[in-house]
């Protein structure tokens, strides 16, 4: 068994079971596109996989080994992009990016990462002056920082990463993900369809969470 697998995974929020009995398998070099209606548990699943939420039942394995056995190693191999853009309004785009890079022990080549999302010109602009789409690009540039470092994260968990992006930026994101996959990385991406799905076609499997959730 290779890549990321889950067995009988369940998540409970409040008193309600969001999903249960979830079996996933994503091989290295493949992406999995999660679809499902609002509230079907896509975000919860990504948070459980990242270790931000505890799983109520079941296990998650990387290369066949249970990740609960070594949570630090699991965190080191995981890059998570959530709904919010974790940028401080008074810091510039490059300062924000450099902080996250260094905190994760990566060698942040901020310039290159920003260039990858065509926002090198915004490096010295405080994040408060950036539009929603530009903030999202800076947030996604964190992935590029990890990608350009040795021993960067191999498991990408992206929660609707294309939200607020223009078509050009969506292709930049797709190219970044494809480069990650060609590097034998794994990506799990929640989407509501659209251009990103088309661009990743052929490299991606689909998984509909609402069909199997309870």
């Amino acid at each position, binding site marked *: 068994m290779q890549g990321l697998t889950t067995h009988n995974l369940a998540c409970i929020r409040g008193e309600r079971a969001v999903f249960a009995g979830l079996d996933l398998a994503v091989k290295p070099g493949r992406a999995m596109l999660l679809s499902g209606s609002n509230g079907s548990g896509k975000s919860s699943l990504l948070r459980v996989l*990242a*270790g*931000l*939420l*505890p799983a109520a039942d079941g296990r998650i394995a990387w290369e066949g080994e249970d990740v609960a056995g070594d949570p*630090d190693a699991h*965190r*080191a191999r*995981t890059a*998570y992009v*959530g*709904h*919010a*853009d*974790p*940028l*401080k309004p*008074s*810091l510039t785009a490059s*300062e924000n990016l450099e*902080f*996250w890079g*260094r*905190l*994760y*022990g990566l060698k942040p080549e901020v310039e290159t990462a920003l260039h990858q999302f065509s926002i090198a010109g915004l490096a010295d602009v405080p994040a408060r002056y950036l539009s929603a789409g530009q903030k999202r690009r800076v947030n996604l540039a964190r992935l590029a920082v990890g990608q350009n470092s040795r021993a960067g994260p191999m498991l990408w968990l992206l929660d609707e990463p294309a939200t607020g992006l223009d078509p050009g930026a969506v292709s930049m994101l797709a190219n970044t993900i494809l480069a990650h996959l060609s590097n034998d990385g794994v990506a799990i991406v929640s989407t509501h369809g659209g251009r990103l799905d088309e661009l990743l076609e052929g490299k991606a499997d689909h998984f509909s969470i609402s069909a199997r959730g309870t």
Partner: protein
Amino acid sequence: MIGFMLILRRELRLAWRGGTDAVIAVVFFVLAAVLFPFGVGTDPGMLPRIGGGIIWVVALLAAMLSLERMFAGDHEDGSLDLLYLSPVPLGTLALAKAAAHWLTTGVLLLVAAPVLALLYNLPGEAIGALAASMLLGTPVLSLVGGIGAALTLGARRGGVLLALLILPLYIPVLIFGAGAIDGAVAGRPIGPQLMVMGGFLLAALALAPWATAAALRQAIE
């Protein structure tokens, strides 16, 4: 250690560029302490007797003003998730946040306190006791306050809840801090009070980051 310095530097930079937040606490401290003599009258014998207690009570309240924002911003914009997922332990994060809070609030209170002491006509040795007790006491306020800030994350009316949670925990600091100043005014030795306060500081350094980390873990889920 690298993680601690990174977070501390980020917090200080944010405080510096944020400007007013840190200044508000010290302005409140001075203003509130200046109001008391108007309320209680200017009997020259009374002010030195009550001054130490008043300065300490106002310092507790001032330190609380900026506590609510300690983790709230990071919680709202998703930074807390990423801080948790980073190789830096949550305990280190809690310690760095408390250190930043102390440097941007406690130190300013520490600087302003002797000026207020003059206003209350405290004798010279009492000003020394005030400075020493605040040096030992204000870091405790930041460390213990961090627990409250983490516990009230995401709560409605978190500020009020924070006050209810944290003020009772501040009472020991208040008792020994004001006690040291009273002692100095009365000409008694203040060593014992300061030693107890040093004990509080060591205990808070050891326990508060750990408790804050547990509360943050809860908030992330």
